[in-house]
């Protein structure tokens, strides 16, 4: 096992992914690839608030490094984010944004709005776009605008959407979301819509897997639900 630094002296880059060593077989996967949350994320608004969902797999190359990961991360009492991309980057980002929000809430003396949380993420991701790999969905509920979903792309673009999906598994459910999502669903309809979407992606995307985790955010607070693999809806 040797350092990527040593290995890459011969070619002009220090890219961790490139190795050409005779000791390649001794280099474990986790040193060759940064941790990725090869992920499926979904968020949708329903008549009383919003719901978010994610799978639970963390991968390092082809190795499953975590099978019960929680990618729905709490930022404030009523704002959550869904993380995809490099797990080191998104964990660090979420911790920073969480700090900013708690400081901001102390200053203004009331809960932060969802847009503020999303814009802090957007600021950081845009500013550090060349060193970060982070696809984030920010979702939550505030008094002024009710339930809201914001998506921040890898390049740092922010967009408010009624329904959002992200991560490597999202490509497999684009058609499903476009054809199935409708505004003002009931909470149960919305829940089933999300669980089905995550299930479809888990079965078609190698880097998504495990169970489905959900969170419902509305005026009365946050409710979490975990759906184990054997409870996922059957596919034909």
């Amino acid at each position, binding site marked *: 096992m040797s350092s990527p630094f040593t290995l890459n002296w011969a070619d002009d880059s220090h890219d961790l992914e490139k190795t050409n060593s005779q000791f390649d077989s001794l280099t474990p996967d986790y*040193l060759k690839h940064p941790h990725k949350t090869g992920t499926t994320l979904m968020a949708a608004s329903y008549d009383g608030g919003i719901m978010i969902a994610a799978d639970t797999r963390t991968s390092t190359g082809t190795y499953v490094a975590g099978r019960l990961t929680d990618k729905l991360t709490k930022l404030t009492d009523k704002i959550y984010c869904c993380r995809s991309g490099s797990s*080191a980057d998104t964990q*660090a980002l979420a911790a920073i944004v969480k700090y900013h929000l708690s400081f901001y809430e102390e200053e203004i003396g009331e809960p932060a709005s969802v847009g503020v949380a999303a814009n802090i993420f957007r600021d950081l991701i845009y500013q550090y776009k060349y060193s970060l790999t982070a696809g984030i969905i920010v979702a939550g509920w505030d008094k002024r605008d009710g339930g809201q979903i914001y998506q921040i792309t890898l390049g740092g673009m922010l967009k408010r959407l009624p329904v959002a999906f992200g991560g490597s598994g999202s490509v497999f459910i684009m058609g499903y979301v476009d054809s199935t999502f409708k505004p003002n669903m009931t909470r149960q309809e919305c829940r089933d819509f999300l669980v089905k979407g995550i299930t479809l992606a888990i079965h078609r995307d190698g880097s998504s897997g495990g169970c489905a985790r959900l969170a419902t955010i509305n005026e009365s607070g946050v409710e979490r639900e975990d759906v184990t693999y054997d409870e996922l809806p059957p596919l034909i």
Partner: protein
Amino acid sequence: MSSALLPPFPEPGFSFENVERNVSLVKKGFKPPKFTSTGTTVAAAIFDGGIIIGTDKRASAGTIVANKNTNKIHKISNNIAFGGAGTAADCDQMEKMVRAHVELHRLNSGKQVPVCVALTKITQHLFRYQGHIQCALIVGGVDKFGYHLHHVYPHGSSSEVLFEAMGSGSLAAISHLELNYKQNMNLDEAKLLIRNAILAGVENDLASGNGIDLCIITPSGMEHLVDYEIPVAFV
């Protein structure tokens, strides 16, 4: 403003100024030195009475065994320790840095330091260096909040786990843990589980071997079992 009397502060962090020189040296046929790294098997689990961490004892430089009696269990404080895989020097320096930080925290607060303090220090430090510090760690400890076990990867991501294996022998070790781990094991069961997991790494991974160390952390203290068992075959 700098002068001979008042030299400028050096830039913080790693210096990469020799990279171009090294590239040209390699092109001229210079063989760069190898890093001594702990091609390792580390395994750890939560059991009924606390945390158990186990490691093998081999450090390798390529296919050469650089050290046959390596300590890969790094003690941070009376209640926190980590098992380290990756570059040996990086793990040792990480232990020094975190131990100093945790001890200062203990002296400032006058309380036992929670595991999350050490964990946060480690992940923030690793993230700052963007994966150049090659430590893959299993951080374990006992504090007033309970028993904690976290894995940490070189880029600074971390996750809480019940059991985990790390290093080049982790594939063999994790399969043993996945099959045989139970919740609420007693100490003897846990020792046997981790011993067998490390042994799986020692037997199946050529970068692991030369013996087994165990570390047991309970609310009453930390016990470090050096050479818990030397395998009959020195694989």
